[in-house]
């Protein structure tokens, strides 16, 4: 029993060490020169453009549902006029970034994990390495930077669509005009609502890209490993999103809301 615990602890420490090496390798290769711009643009397209529909639909439904759920309670309190503000602040500060990041973790981290995992199984990463090219620079750096850039952009788009969903729900019941609704939404937002929310999405993007790449790049050589890499990438990235969110909220509270 004690032996098993020691082995498990050793394995856990080894994993931390491997991630540290991977992390260092990523940063070293960013500044090494010969950045793979064409692959980076392709990844931005794959990660950003191809996730837009999913993010859009999810955000739209979230905005719509939140208004429908909030309205009866707000009506009871006579705070119906506060609905646009409530939605705007909650969606932009917290719900939008986290939900969009979780959705993207499911789609993008698993995609990257499976893609790199299958490249490992079919010896494509080894082939790249023995050909003298740099697989870390070509495969990892481009993907992690692409997710770090595209997740904030997707969040901005998702936030806008979510607020629009909220408008449609409110317009059905309260016949509010488009300009009044968005005026109320925007006037209720301050810099400290927008800036920390946007900054944390960069970290969400980094976590999604890093975890996806790490799990795929270090998967074992077997077809089963591809599934394991994809699955483990989603679970770990989702967990990291919540951890980063908790830290970001604490930091924001300390810095801006005292």
């Amino acid at each position, binding site marked *: 029993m004690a032996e098993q615990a020691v082995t498990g602890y050793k394995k856990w420490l080894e994993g931390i060490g491997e991630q540290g090496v991977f992390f260092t390798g990523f940063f070293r290769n960013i500044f090494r020169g*010969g950045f793979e711009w064409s692959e980076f643009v392709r990844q931005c397209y794959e990660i950003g453009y191809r996730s837009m529909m999913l993010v859009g639909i999810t955000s739209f439904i979230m905005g719509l549902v939140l208004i429908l759920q909030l309205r009866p309670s707000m009506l009871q309190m006579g705070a119906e006029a506060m609905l646009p503000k409530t939605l705007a602040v909650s969606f932009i500060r917290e719900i939008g970034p986290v939900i969009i990041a979780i959705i993207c973790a499911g789609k993008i981290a698993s995609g990257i994990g499976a893609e790199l995992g*299958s*490249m490992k199984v*079919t*010896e*494509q990463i*080894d*082939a*790249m*390495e*023995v*050909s*003298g*090219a*740099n697989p870390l620079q*070509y495969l990892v750096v481009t993907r992690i930077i692409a997710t770090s850039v595209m997740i904030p952009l997707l969040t901005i788009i998702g936030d806008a669509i979510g607020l629009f969903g909220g408008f449609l729900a409110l317009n059905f019941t309260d016949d509010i005009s488009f300009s009044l609704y968005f005026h109320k939404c925007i006037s209720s937002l301050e810099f400290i609502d927008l800036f920390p929310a946007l900054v944390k999405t960069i970290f969400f993007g980094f976590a999604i890209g890093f975890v996806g790449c790490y799990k795929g790049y270090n998967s074992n050589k077997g077809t089963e490993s591809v599934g394991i890499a994809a699955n483990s990438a989603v679970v770990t990235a989702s967990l990291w999103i919540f951890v980063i969110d908790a830290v970001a909220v604490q930091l924001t509270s300390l810095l801006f809301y005292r």
Partner: protein
Amino acid sequence: MQTETKHTQKEKPADNNEVVVDIDHISKSFGEKEVLKDITLKLKRGENVVVLGKSGQGKSVTIQCIVGLLTPDAGTVKVFGDNVAEMNDEQLKELRTRVSFLFQSGALYDSMTVRDNLEFPLTRILKIKDQVEIDKRVEEALDGVGLLDAIDKLPSDLSGGMRKRAGLARTMIVRPEIMLYDEPTTGLDPITSREISELILNMQKKFKTSAIIITHDMECAKITADRVVIMNEGTYIAEGSFDELKNADDKLVRSFFNETT
């Protein structure tokens, strides 16, 4: 064909004795399993050495040590006189421009067309910028393996044999001095296997490459080998020409040949 190859070697007698790969008493274990046990092998310039053996005997591990994908637990691997284990990243990169590796599956990059696969080493390793030169070399390489028609296809649209040929073209496009072939004919029908074996031989003649060919395909060994080494349970048990080993006294050695030829 073998005679022709040897004739080619005779044209460059001064190079014939230069040892380009010197594997000296290497051992390698994975966990409890000892895969390589005190292996020694020398590859001379312009020579094709075939390593024969059953699957899972450590044949591929040997050639992975040559390009630094794996490091032996004991012994040394010297390529062009330099110890691979002591090379830094830049030296390894330099080495890998002179030594190419053809993987069992061809290992074409899935997301790229055949053209992009072949352009990849040209732009990243040889740093060629001139698109006209790149196009010329890609087309030449594909023509050499009879795949010019598939230039804009994705690897998923190619058959197993075509993938191997495209993989071969990609490795040869940088004109390496040493080629390492990992099971080049595995999983192919006999006709395609023969075509690939003949391509390997043609590459040797055309580019004067030295090669280590890992296989358990006797037909491939017969066509390509200048020298055959037989591996069993992580160690080399016999060495000689194809015909010498085929008629060897040792029962185990002969059994490799009797099964298929």
